[in-house]
C-alpha cells in the first residue's frame, strides 16, 4: 500500500514533506486537503488527523501528523534516503533537532501569522488584521536575524554548519518561501538585510530541484488570485465584520 500524503501545497509544512519525498524517490499518493475551503475540518479528515491541520500521512495502518515528526519518520523508514537529511551521528542529529524545535515558537510563529494577516487571509474569506501582522512581523524579523547570525554560522552552506541540507533546512526554507505572497517591497524589507539567509534559500532550492519550484508554483498562482481580488475589507468573500480572526491552521 503506497504512502498517502494529506497535504495542501499552500501549507508550508506540506511542501516540505512533498519536496522531501520527491527528492528521495519516495512513492506517494498526494491527497489534497483544501484548507482555503476548510476541508481539514471535515469529519472524514478528523479520522486521519484529529488536530485538523495539514500535513498528515498514512503509511499502511500507521497515521502520523506534525511535519517534523513526519520528516524524521520518512528519513528513517525509507531506504535510499541520504544520511545528511537526518544524520545517524547523535550529536549532529541533536543540533538538527534543536533547530526543528526552535522553529515552532520562532520562525513559524512569526512567519505564518504575518503572511496570513498581512496578505493571505482573503483567500480564506477572512479580513486582513494589520495589528496581528505587526506583532508577528517582530517575531519573524527576530527569527530571520537569528538564522542569519546563529543557525547559519559555520563552514557549511546549510543550517548548523552542515555542508549538505537536512530536514531542518527544508522545513525552515519552505516557511520563508511563504513570503513570496507579499509585495516585493515587504519581502525586501524582511529578507534584504540577511544575505546568508538569501543564499541559503537558493542553496536549498538548488539541492532539491526541480521539486522545490514545482511545489512552490502554487504561491505564484495564489498571488495572482489575490491581486485580482477587490481591495482588502471589501471582498465578496469577506465574512461579517464581527467574525473573529483565526490563525492559519496550515
Amino acid at each position, binding site marked *: 500500500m503506497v504512502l498517502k500524503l494529506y497535504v495542501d501545497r499552500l501549507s508550508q509544512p506540506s511542501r516540505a514533506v512533498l519536496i522531501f519525498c520527491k527528492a528521495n524517490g519516495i512513492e506517494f499518493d498526494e491527497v489534497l486537503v483544501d484548507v482555503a475551503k476548510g476541508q481539514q475540518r471535515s469529519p472524514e479528515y478528523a479520522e486521519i488527523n484529529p488536530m485538523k491541520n495539514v500535513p498528515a500521512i498514512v503509511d499502511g495502518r500507521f497515521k*502520523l501528523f506534525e511535519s517534523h515528526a513526519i520528516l524524521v519518520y520518512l528519513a528513517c523508514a525509507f531506504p535510499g534516503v541520504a544520511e545528511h537529511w537526518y544524520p545517524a551521528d547523535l550529536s549532529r542529529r541533536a543540533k538538527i533537532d*534543536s533547530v*526543528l*524545535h526552535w522553529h515552532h515558537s520562532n520562525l513559524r510563529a512569526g512567519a505564518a501569522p504575518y503572511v496570513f494577516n498581512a496578505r493571505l487571509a482573503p483567500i480564506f474569506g477572512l479580513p486582513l488584521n494589520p495589528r496581528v501582522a505587526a506583532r508577528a512581523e517582530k517575531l519573524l524579523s527576530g527569527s530571520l536575524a537569528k538564522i542569519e547570525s546563529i543557525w547559519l554560522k559555520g563552514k557549511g552552506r546549510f543550517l548548523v554548519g552542515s555542508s549538505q541540507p537536512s530536514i531542518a533546512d527544508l522545513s525552515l526554507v519552505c516557511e520563508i518561501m511563504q513570503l513570496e505572497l507579499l509585495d516585493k517591497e515587504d519581502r525586501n524589507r524582511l529578507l534584504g538585510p540577511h544575505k546568508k539567509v538569501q543564499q541559503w534559500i537558493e542553496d536549498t532550492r538548488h539541492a532539491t530541484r526541480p521539486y522545490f519550484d514545482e511545489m512552490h508554483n502554487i504561491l505564484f498562482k495564489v498571488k495572482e488570485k489575490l491581486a485580482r481580488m477587490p481591495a482588502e475589507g471589501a471582498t465578496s468573500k469577506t465574512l461579517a465584520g464581527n467574525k473573529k480572526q483565526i490563525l492559519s491552521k496550515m
Partner: protein
Amino acid sequence: MKLQIYKHCLSQPSHAVIIFCKLHQIEFEEIEISLANGQQYTPEYKVINPMGKLPAIVHGTYKLSESHAILIYLASFPGVADHWYPSDIQKRAKIQSVLDWHHSNLRQTAAYVMNSSAAPLLRRKLNLEAAVINRKVLLKSLKMIENFWLNGDGKFLLGNSQPSIADLSLACEIMLLELVPDRDQILSPYKKVLQWIEDTRNATNPFFDELHSLMFELKAVLTVESSVAEHSEARRKLRTLLSKL
C-alpha cells in the same frame, strides 16, 4: 565528562531535563541562570546559548539548546530504558508528534502563568489581555490531552504503558499551574489528565517532587492570609525565594 546544565528554578523545560538526569543517574553540574536579573542576555551566557534561553547543556565542547532536543540526546545515554524514546521508528514518531504539538499548544501554560500571575516574580509586567488568549489555548490543549493523547490502554500519553520524554515534558508544563489561583478550576474537569500527572510523578519520584518544591513554597507564600506578624514572616520568606530567581 560531566554534563553541565544551565537552568532556572521556575523553568519547566529545565525541570524535565534535570528530572531525567537524576532518574538515570546521569552526573551533572547545575548552573542557575537568574531570569529576574536578565542573566540569560549576558555575553557570558550567550557563549553557552546564543538564543538566550533555558535550559542549555554543555557536554565537553558540545553545546545544545531546546529541551526536547536535549531530552532526545540524553535518551541515548547508556542505561536509559527504551520506553523513554523508543528505537521503534513508529513509536518514536508518535512521541515526536507530541513533542512538536506541545510548542504551539500546551506550552501556552507558561505564557498564561507569567502573563496572569507570575511575571512580577521575574520583574516583568503582567499582560492580562494576552493571558486571556493563553488560557483559551491552554484549555483547548488540556481537552486534547484528555480526549486524544491519553486514549489507549496504558497510563501514559499515546496509550503507552510506560512514560516517555513526552510525558515528562508535558507533565512538568502543567505543574506550572501551581502558581495560579485558578489552577483547580482549570484542571478539575480533566480527570484523566490529573491521573496521568500523578502517574508521571510516581514514575519519576522522588525527583519530580524535589524539582517542584520551590513552586509549592512560592504557592504557599503567595496565597497566605495572615495577621500582621504572619504577613511579615510571609514577606521575609518571599524575599528569600525571590532572590533565587
